[in-house]
C-alpha cells in the first residue's frame, strides 16, 4: 500500500518536473538562441537549418562587437546615466518618503495624491514638451539631459514610505529628545534600517534606466553619447554586421542586467510586490 503511494508520488513528481522543464525551455529559448548564435562562425550563422547547438566557441564575435560597434563606450554611457538616475531616485525618494512617514503636516494627503498622479500620466502626454525643453536648454547629448526627467520617482517614494512606516515612531521621539534633527535622524537611523528597501529601489531604477530606449533615442544624436540600447539596435540597422556578431552584442548588453537580476532577484521581487500588491 505505502509502496503504491510512494510510486504514485514519484510519478506525479516526474510529471510536474516535466511540465516545469518544458515551460522553462519555452521561456528561456530566445535567450538560449541568442547565446548559441553568438558563438557561431559567420558562415554557420547564415546556414539553413539554423544551428541550435553550438559547434565551437567563436569568442572573437564578442571582441569584434566590442571593438567595431564601440559597445564599450555605449556601456560606459549607460552605466553613467543609470548611476546618476539611481542615486537621484534613491536620494529624492528617501527625502520625500521621510516627510510622508515621519512629519505631520497640513495637506499631506493632497501632496501624496500629487505624487501618485504622476504615475497615471503616460509618457506620450509629456514627451514632446520635454524634448523641446531639453533642446532649448542645450542639454541634448549630455548626461544631465539623459537623467534629469527621471530623477524623481513616485513609485520609489511610495515603496520607501511603506517601509519607513514600519519603523517605530518611538525611535523618532527618543531622537527628538536627544536633540537629533530630522536630517540626521534620516541619515543615521532610517537609512541603515531601510537598507533592503533602498537596495530594491536602487536595483530597480538601475534596470529601468539601463533598459530605456525612447528618451535616449530622442535626445542623443552624437555617437559618443549613445546609450547601449540605442547602440545595439543600430548594429542591426547598419547591416554591415553579421547576425552572430549582433547576437554577441545582445549578450554583452544583456549580461549586466541578467547578472543583477540573478544576484538580487529575491530582494527585487519581495520589494516590488510589497509596493505593488499592498498598494
Amino acid at each position, binding site marked *: 500500500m505505502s509502496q503504491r503511494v510512494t510510486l504514485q508520488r514519484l510519478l506525479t513528481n516526474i510529471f510536474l518536473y516535466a511540465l516545469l522543464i518544458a515551460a522553462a525551455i519555452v521561456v528561456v529559448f530566445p535567450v538560449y538562441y541568442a547565446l548559441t548564435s553568438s558563438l557561431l562562425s559567420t558562415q554557420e550563422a547564415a546556414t539553413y537549418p539554423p544551428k541550435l547547438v553550438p559547434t565551437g566557441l567563436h569568442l572573437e564575435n564578442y571582441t569584434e562587437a566590442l571593438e567595431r560597434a564601440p559597445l564599450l563606450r555605449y556601456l560606459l554611457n549607460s552605466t553613467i546615466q543609470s548611476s546618476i538616475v539611481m542615486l537621484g531616485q534613491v536620494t529624492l525618494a528617501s527625502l520625500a518618503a521621510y516627510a510622508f512617514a515621519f512629519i505631520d503636516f497640513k495637506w499631506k494627503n493632497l501632496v501624496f495624491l500629487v505624487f501618485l498622479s504622476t504615475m497615471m500620466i503616460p509618457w506620450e502626454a509629456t514627451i514632446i514638451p520635454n524634448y523641446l525643453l531639453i533642446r532649448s536648454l542645450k542639454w541634448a547629448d549630455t548626461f544631465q539631459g539623459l537623467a534629469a526627467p527621471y530623477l524623481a520617482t513616485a513609485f520609489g517614494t511610495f515603496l520607501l514610505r511603506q517601509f519607513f512606516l514600519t519603523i517605530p515612531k518611538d525611535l523618532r521621539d527618543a531622537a527628538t529628545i536627544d536633540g537629533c534633527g530630522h536630517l540626521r535622524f534620516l541619515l543615521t537611523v532610517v537609512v541603515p534600517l531601510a537598507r533592503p528597501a533602498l537596495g530594491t529601489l536602487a536595483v530597480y531604477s538601475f534596470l529601468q534606466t539601463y533598459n530605456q530606449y525612447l528618451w535616449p533615442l530622442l535626445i542623443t544624436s552624437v555617437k559618443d553619447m549613445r546609450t547601449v540600447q540605442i547602440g545595439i539596435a543600430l548594429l542591426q540597422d547598419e547591416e554591415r554586421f553579421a547576425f552572430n556578431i549582433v547576437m554577441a552584442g545582445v549578450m554583452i*548588453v544583456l549580461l549586466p542586467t541578467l547578472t543583477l537580476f540573478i544576484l538580487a532577484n529575491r530582494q527585487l521581487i519581495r520589494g516590488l510586490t510589497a509596493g505593488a500588491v499592498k498598494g
Partner: protein
Amino acid sequence: MTMLESAAEVAGRMRPSIRLAGPRWRAVRNFLLAMLFLSPSLVIFLTFVFTPLVRTFWLSTYATNPIGRPTVFVGLDQYLRLIQTPDFAYSLRVSLLFALYTVPTTILVGLVLATLGNMRLRGIALFRICFSFTIAVSGATASLIFLYLYHPATGPLNYFLDLLRLPRVNWLTDASTALMAVSLTTVWLQIGLNTIILLAGMQGISDEFYEAAKIDGAGFWASFRHVTLPLLSPTMFFLLVMDTLAALQAFTQFQVMTKGGPMSSTTVVVYSIYREFYFNGQYGYAAAQSVVLFFIMLVLTTIQFGVLERRVFYQ
C-alpha cells in the same frame, strides 16, 4: 466704548491667539520642514511632468515651426484633422488590437507560469528565475533576438514549422501577421513582471483556504477554480490595468522590429506620434494625438475600475 474697555477687549481677543500661537507655529514649521524634504521631487515633477502635460494641451492648439516654436493659434483644427484623416483612426485600431492581443495572453501565460512556480518542489527557485527573468530584458534586445527568430529564410520559428510540415510564415514582412508577431515578443517581455506579481499574489493566499477545500474533497482544478482564482482576482485586476496602460504605450518593439510597417499594419498611436514630431516636425499635430490617446487611456482605466473592480473579490 472707553479706551480701557477696548484695550481689554483687544487683550481678550489676543489671549486665545497667543495660546494658539504654539501649535499654529508648529504647524507652519512642520509644513515648511516637509516641503524642504519634498521640494526636490516636486521640482522635478513640476518641470518634467505637470508643466509638460499642460504644454502638450496648449501645443495641440497651435501650428508650429520646424523647431517646435508655436506660431499660429489654430484652435481645434489639429483635432479636426485627426478626425478627418483615416490614418489616425487606423492607428487607434492597431493600438487597441495590440492591447487585445497582448494583455489577456500575458496574464494567462503568467497565471500558468505562476501556478507552476508556486509548487513546493526541490529546485523550484531555479524555475522561478527562469519564469521571471524577462523583467531584466530590455525591449531593444528582445526585439533584436525575435527579429532573427522570425527570419523568414533561416529563423528557427520557420524551421520548426518546416519540421511540423506546416506552411512557413513571413512573420514580420506580411501585413496580416506582423502585429501578431510583435505581440508575441511583447508577451514574452511582459511575462516576467506578470509572473512575479501573480506568484506573490498566490503566496499571499493562506493555506487554510486550500485545507478547507481539500476537506470538501476538492482536487487540484476545483481548488484552483474556487480558491486561487477568486482570491487572485484583485492581483489580476491590477495587472489588467497595468498591462493595458503598458500596451498602449509600447514603442521600442515597433521601432526596432517593424518601424510601423508593413503597410502601416503596426503603426500604433505612439509610433505615429513619434513619427509626426520627430521626423515630420508636426509638433502640434503630434500633441493633439497625444491628448486623444491620453484621454482614451483615462477612459479605459476608469471603465476598468468602474465595471470590473466590482467583480473583484477582496479577501
